């Protein structure tokens, strides 16, 4: 039934396969593959930025649905992701590709998913300029809790993430125009209920990281003044 349906996952994290962005995207891609979709995955930093433009543009044009997953960088999209969107927009005259849809999933390091609001708004503006139908976006705070693990193996901490992604899969299969509000709410629900708990764990991991590299005493250095 879904044999001619084609989904392209664009992973916008330089972390590649071990990133939260990849984990979130893979979950959706795997579910759709089971349903008979043709699935393709490209990593923006390692593949798109170095691939030849013609091949990349053909892959983009062939997709019925583009799923863009990326980390929040400085309140926005990472530079190579913006560069890829510029590239797609620059060569596309509106309405050149019919019925193409975009879904974006952004995750950030701070506990509040609300930091991601503007990055998703940027994705929506891109869709408008490139003549792609915007299905909507999901926003995850505390992205570090996923850290490249398969979403299905996250256990209780990943319940809301799985619920959100399942609803997105369903909306794609059913050829809906928008992802459901409920999916957006699930994804924005903090995986760890207390912010202080998440920031304490993250701070401990910075301390251990610096300790391992023997720079703990220098962690607050001010090298440029």
């Amino acid at each position, binding site marked *: 039934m879904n044999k001619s349906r084609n989904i392209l996952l664009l992973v916008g994290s330089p972390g590649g396969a071990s990133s939260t962005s990849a984990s979130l995207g893979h979950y959706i891609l795997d579910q759709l593959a089971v349903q008979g979709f043709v699935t393709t995955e490209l990593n923006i930093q390692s593949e798109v930025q170095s691939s030849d433009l013609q091949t990349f543009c053909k892959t983009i044009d062939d997709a019925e649905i583009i799923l863009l997953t990326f980390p929040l960088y400085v309140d926005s999209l990472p530079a190579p992701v913006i560069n890829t969107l510029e590239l797609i927009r620059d060569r596309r005259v509106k309405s050149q590709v019919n019925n193409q849809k975009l879904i974006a999933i952004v995750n950030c390091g701070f506990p509040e998913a609300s930091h991601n609001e*503007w990055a998703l708004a940027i994705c929506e503006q891109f869709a408008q300029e490139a003549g792609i139908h915007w299905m909507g976006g999901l926003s995850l705070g505390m992205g570090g809790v996923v850290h490249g693990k398969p979403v299905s193996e996250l256990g209780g901490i990943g319940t809301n993430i799985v619920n959100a992604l399942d609803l997105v899969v369903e909306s794609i299969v059913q050829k809906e125009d928008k992802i459901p509000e409920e999916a957006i709410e699930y994804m924005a629900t903090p995986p760890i209920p207390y912010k202080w708990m998440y920031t304490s764990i993250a701070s401990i991991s910075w301390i251990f990281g610096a300790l391992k590299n023997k720079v703990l005493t220098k962690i607050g250095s001010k090298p440029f003044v």
Partner: protein
Amino acid sequence: MKALILNGERSFEYSLSKFSKIIEDLLKGAGYQIKTIILHEKNIGNCIGCFGCWLKKPGICIIEDDAQEVAREVINSDIIIYLTPVTFGGYSSQLKKALDRNISLISPFFGTYHGEVHHRPRYKKYPSLIGIGVFSEYNKDQAELFTNLVERNAYNFHSPSHASQVFTAGESLQEIELKINSLLSKVGVNYE
């Protein structure tokens, strides 16, 4: 007093030098020492998300290219100006490439600011932030988005004050000058 313009124009698109020239003249008139960096002329790689600037060489990005010089200039300025074509309501990839590499300037640790979690400052003093976005064709939603994004960046970056303005390519020099004057006064520039 020092000011730094980060010009994020794209090499093959319309130049933003008209804007940087006006900013330079106005700030010089107010006694500022001013430097402009045209980012596409620099060798700046993409952030690889390794957090080495916090955990390997604290305060310095581990990639050795021109982004290190940009970060040094940024933190030693009193005002920084992000000058960019408005790109989907945000910044061009050229400007963003440099900004992604500037997380070396803040601390990995967290604090609560403006009611939400952000990173703590690494340095005692941060520059005020001005965002200037240039449209080839005006778009109201994107203009609002641009203003919000500059504000979000100012929060994340502990800027003591911030202001932003969008322009459309065809605006006259007088109009541009008037608006930039008002922007500069919002971050405390005075000409006495």
